[in-house]
C-alpha cells in the first residue's frame, strides 16, 4: 500500500529497488565464491550443486543383521529399516535410500562420495539401554587385562541368572552398595570389579559385549571414566520422544526425554529412589546411565522424581551435542543388532540419457515459453524473460548455498520441480500484466495503470503463492524422502517468485513505463493501444468520459 500512497517517493524508488535487488544477487554469488576460496575440505567445487543418488551416485553400505540378536523377522527388519531411514535422513534433505534385502540385510545408499562417517553414525547407534550405576568414576587402566582373564571373568558373570533380580534389588545395589545383593551374586560382583580394574577406556570407541539383562563394565569415552552398570532397567524401545531444547529462561541446552509403557513406570520408581539419595547427599548413588551399543552416552544425576515419564537431561551440552544425543535417544532403539558388511561407491541410478533428456526438456520448455511470451506480450515479453532469468540465477545460487548449508540435494524430481516452476513463476507476471491491461482498458493512463494494476495483482499473487507456501511447509514437516526435498524446492521457488516479482519485475515495469518505447505504446512494446484493446486514444492519456470509451469500443 505504501508504495502507491505516497506518489513522489514512489517515482524515485524503482531504480533503487532494482539495483539493490541485483546487488543482493551479486552478493550471494560472491558468497559462493568466498566459500570456494575458504573451502577447507577441498572437495567438489562450490559451483557444483549437490546432486542426489539418481544423478551422481554415492555410497552404498550393507548392514547385516547379527544372528545372536534374536529372531530376524521381516517385521523387525522393517522396523529397523524405518529407524535407520529416519536416522540417515534426520539431518536434512539429503535423500538417502534405505532398503531391506534378502531377509536379513539393510542397504543404505547415500548421495555423495566418501561418507564413511555415515557408517559410524548409522551402524553405531544400534542398542540403547538405561542402566543404573553400581560403581562409577573409576579410572581407566593403562594396560589391558589379558584376554584369558577377561574371558574367565565374563564366564562367571554370564553363568549367573541376573534376570532374577528385582528392580528394588538393582536399585538397592546402587544406593546401599553391591554388598546388599544376595550372596549367590557376590562372585559375579567380584568378577565385575576385576574386569573394571583392567578396563582400558579409549576415546575412539570401545568394544564390549552389551547384553541387556546382564551387568556391564564400560566407560564414558568423553570423560574416560569406567563404570560398573546394572542390568538394563529401561529399554530403548520405551523411549517415545527426545528433543534438544533450551528451556525458557535458561541459556544452556538440555535434552528432553519422554518414555512410554513399562519404561515410564520403572523410571518413576528409579527416580524416586535415586532422588532421595541425592537429597541425602549421595551423588554417586543417584546416577543412572544411558548406554548406546555398550558405550555410555551420558550418566546424569537424578535431580527429581519423574512420575509422568517426562524428564530432562542437562549437562555440558552445546546445540550440536544436544541434538546428537536427542537423535540417538529417539532413533537409538533398533530391534536387531547389525554389523557392517561393507561399503562401496556406486554410480548414478539414472541412465545418463535421462539426465541429458531432462535438461534438454528444460531447455526446450524454456525456449517455448520465451517464444510464446514474445509473441503474445511482445516488448513486455522481454520483461518476463528477464524476470525468469533473474529467478533462475537466484534459484541456482540458493541451491548452491543450501546444498552447503543444509545438505539440500538435487534429484531428478527436484529438477523436474524446478522446470515446472518456470510456468508457475511466469504466472505471477501474467497476473500482473493482465491486471495492468485491465486498468488501461478501464481508462487509466499507462503510468497510473502500472501502479493501480500492481496494487490489485499484488494481493492475488500473494494469496496464490501463500497456497504454494502452505503446501511446501506442511509437506516438508510431515513428509519424508523425495517428497521432503521436493517440498523444499517448491517452497524455495515460490519465495523466489515473490522476491522477483516484487523487487525486479514491478520496478522494472515502472521504469519502462517512463520510457518512450513502452510508455507511449510503441507498436512492438506490447503496450500499444491496439494490443491493449483500446483505440481512439493514446495509452498515455486518461479516458475522461464513458462516451469516449464506448465509441472506441464500437470501433473495434
Amino acid at each position, binding site marked *: 500500500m505504501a508504495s502507491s500512497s505516497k506518489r513522489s517517493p514512489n517515482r524515485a524508488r524503482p531504480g533503487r529497488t532494482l539495483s539493490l535487488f541485483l546487488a543482493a544477487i551479486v552478493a550471494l554469488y560472491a558468497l559462493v565464491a568466498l566459500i570456494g576460496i575458504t573451502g577447507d575440505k577441498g572437495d567438489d567445487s562450490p559451483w557444483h550443486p549437490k546432486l542426489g543418488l539418481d544423478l551422481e551416485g554415492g555410497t552404498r553400505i550393507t548392514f547385516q543383521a547379527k544372528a545372536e540378536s534374536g529372531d530376524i523377522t*521381516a517385521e523387525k527388519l522393517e522396523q529397523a529399516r524405518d529407524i535407520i531411514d529416519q536416522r540417515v535422513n534426520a539431518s536434512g534433505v539429503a535423500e538417502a535410500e534405505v532398503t531391506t534385502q534378502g531377509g536379513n540385510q539393510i542397504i543404505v545408499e547415500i548421495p555423495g562420495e566418501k561418507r564413511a562417517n555415515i557408517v559410524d553414525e548409522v551402524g553405531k547407534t544400534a542398542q540403547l539401554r538405561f542402566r543404573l550405576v553400581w560403581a562409577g568414576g573409576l579410572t581407566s587402566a593403562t594396560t589391558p587385562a589379558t584376554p584369558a582373564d577377561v574371558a574367565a571373568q565374563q564366564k562367571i558373570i554370564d553363568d549367573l541368572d541376573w534376570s532374577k533380580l528385582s528392580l528394588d534389588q538393582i536399585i538397592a545395589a546402587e544406593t546401599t552398595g553391591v554388598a546388599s545383593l544376595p550372596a549367590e551374586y557376590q562372585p559375579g560382583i567380584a568378577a565385575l570389579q576385576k574386569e573394571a580394574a583392567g578396563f582400558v577406556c579409549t576415546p575412539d570407541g570401545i568394544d564390549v559385549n552389551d547384553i541387556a539383562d546382564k551387568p556391564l563394565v564400560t566407560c564414558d569415552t568423553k570423560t574416560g571414566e569406567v563404570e560398573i552398570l546394572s542390568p538394563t532397567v529401561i529399554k530403548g524401545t520405551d523411549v517415545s520422544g527426545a528433543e534438544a531444547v533450551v528451556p525458557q529462561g535458561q541459556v544452556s541446552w538440555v535434552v528432553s526425554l519422554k518414555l512410554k509403557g513399562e519404561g515410564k513406570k520403572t523410571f518413576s520408581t528409579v527416580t524416586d529412589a535415586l532422588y532421595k539419595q541425592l537429597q541425602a547427599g549421595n551423588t554417586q548413588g543417584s546416577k543412572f546411565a544411558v548406554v548406546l551399543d555398550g558405550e555410555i552416552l551420558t550418566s546424569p544425576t537424578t535431580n527429581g522424581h519423574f512420575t509422568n515419564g517426562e524428564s530432562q537431561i542437562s549437562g555440558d551440552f552445546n546445540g550440536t551435542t544436544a541434538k546428537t544425543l536427542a537423535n540417538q535417544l529417539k532413533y537409538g532403539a533398533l530391534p536387531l543388532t547389525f554389523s557392517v558388511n561393507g561399503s562401496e561407491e556406486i554410480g548414478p541410478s539414472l541412465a545418463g540419457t535421462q539426465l541429458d533428456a531432462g535438461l534438454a526438456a528444460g531447455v526446450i520448455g524454456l525456449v517455448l515459453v520465451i517464444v510464446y511470451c514474445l509473441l503474445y506480450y511482445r516488448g513486455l515479453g522481454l520483461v518476463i524473460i528477464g524476470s525468469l532469468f533473474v529467478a533462475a540465477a537466484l534459484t541456482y545460487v540458493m541451491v548452491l548455498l543450501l546444498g552447503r548449508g543444509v545438505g539440500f540435494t538435487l534429484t531428478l524430481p527436484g529438477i523436474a520441480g524446478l522446470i515446472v516452476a518456470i510456468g508457475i513463476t511466469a504466472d505471477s507476471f501474467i497476473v500482473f500484466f493482465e491486471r495492468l491491461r485491465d486498468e488501461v482498458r478501464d481508462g487509466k493512463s499507462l503510468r497510473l495503470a502500472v501502479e493501480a494494476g500492481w496494487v490489485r495483482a499484488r494481493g492475488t499473487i500473494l494469496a496464490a503463492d501463500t497456497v504454494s507456501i502452505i503446501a511446501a511447509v506442511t509437506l516438508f514437516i510431515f513428509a519424508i524422502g523425495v517428497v521432503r526435498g521436493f517440498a523444499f524446492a517448491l517452497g524455495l521457488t515460490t519465495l523466489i517468485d515473490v522476491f522477483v516479482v516484487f523487487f525486479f519485475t514491478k520496478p522494472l515495469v515502472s521504469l519502462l513505463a517512463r520510457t518512450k518505447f513502452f510508455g507511449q505504446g510503441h507498436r512492438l512494446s506490447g503496450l500499444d493501444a491496439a494490443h491493449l484493446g483500446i483505440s481512439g486514444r493514446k495509452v498515455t492519456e486518461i479516458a475522461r468520459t464513458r462516451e469516449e470509451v464506448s465509441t472506441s469500443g464500437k470501433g473495434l
Partner: protein
Amino acid sequence: MSTFGQHLYEGRVSFDFVGRRKLWYSISAVIVVLAALGFVVKGFNYGVEFKGGVEFTAKVQVANSQTSDEMVQAVEDADVPEAGDPTVQTSGSDTIRIQTRALTQDQATAVTQSLEKAGASEVSQNLIGPTYGKQVATKALTGLIVFLVVVVIFIWVYFREWRMSAGGIVALAHDLIITGGVYAWSGFEVTPATVTGLLTILGYSLYDTVVVFDKVRENTKGILSSTTKTYAEQGNLAVNQTLVRSINTSITALLPVGALLFVGAGVLGTGPLKDLALALFVGMAAGTYSSIFIATPFVVQLKEREPAIKAQTARVMARRAKEGEGLSVGSSTATAVAPARTVRTSGAAKRAQPSRKPRSQRGKGGSGPER
C-alpha cells in the same frame, strides 16, 4: 487475441461457464467415473519402491553410463514385461546393479540370460524389499491431510467465505481423481516420483483456483446493493475476465511440462521422467479446467442458496422483466427460466455497457489516488 481479451473483459464476448454448469458437471462426472473405474478395473502399477523386486548384480568390462544403457536394453530385450523400466546403477569400476519389479524364477532366468548375452558375467540375483515407497506414500498422505485442513482455513479466512473453500476442494478432488485415473488406465508406473507429481498438482490446482476466486470476490463486492447484476453473472464475468490469464498461464506452465513428457515418454520411453511428467501434465490441465468449469460454478451454486443472494437475484430479475418488455426472445427466456444464465449474443453488448459505468467509476475514483 488481445481484442478478444478486451471483449471478454467488457463482457461483450462471454462464455457461459456458470449458467451451463450442468453440462460441465456432466462432462466432469463422466471423466471422473471413467477415472475411478480405472482404479477398480486396472488398479495401479506400483513400482519397485512399493512392491519390492529383484536386484541383479553383474560383472562387466567397464561400468559406465554407456554399459548401463546397454544393460537397460538387455533387460528390455529379455521380453519380460514385468522387468520393464529397470533402474541401473554402476557399482565400483566393473559391477552393475539392475533393479526390476518382482519376477518369477523363470522370468528372472530370462533376464539373466539376456544380460549374459549382452556381455555381462557372473550375474547373481537377490530379492529386495519395498524401499521407502510405502513410507513416502503414508507420510505424504499425512502431509496432504494437514495441508488440506490448513488451506481450507486459509481460503476461508482470506475470502471470508467457506463456499470458496468448498469450491477449491471439490476442484482439487476432481483433478486428483482424473490424474489417478490416467495412471491406472495408462499403466504408467506409480513411484515416489509420481507421488511428488501428485503433490505438485495439489499446489497448482489450488493456486490456480485462488487466482480466479480473487476476481470473483472483486466483482461481487457489494453485490447485495446492486440492482443490475446478479451474483451468478458477476461470477461468470470474473471467469471470463481471467480467461486470458488462465489460458496464458496454462500455456506457459504446460509447455515445459509437455516438453518433459515428450522427451520422457516419447523419446526415451522409459525412466522416472515420464512418470512425473504425465502426472503433472494431466493434473495441470485438469487444474486449469476445474478452476474455470467446476470451482466457480460450484461456488455460485452454493452462494445462490443463501437467502440474501436469492432475494437480490430476484430483485434484479424483477427489474429486468419490467424494463425488458421489448427485449429479444432469447434473453427473456433466460431471465425467466434460468436466472444464473448470463445474457449472450447481441443483446449482451447493450447490457454490458451500462454495467461498466459503476466499475469504471470505481476504477477511477476508488483504486487510483485513494489507495
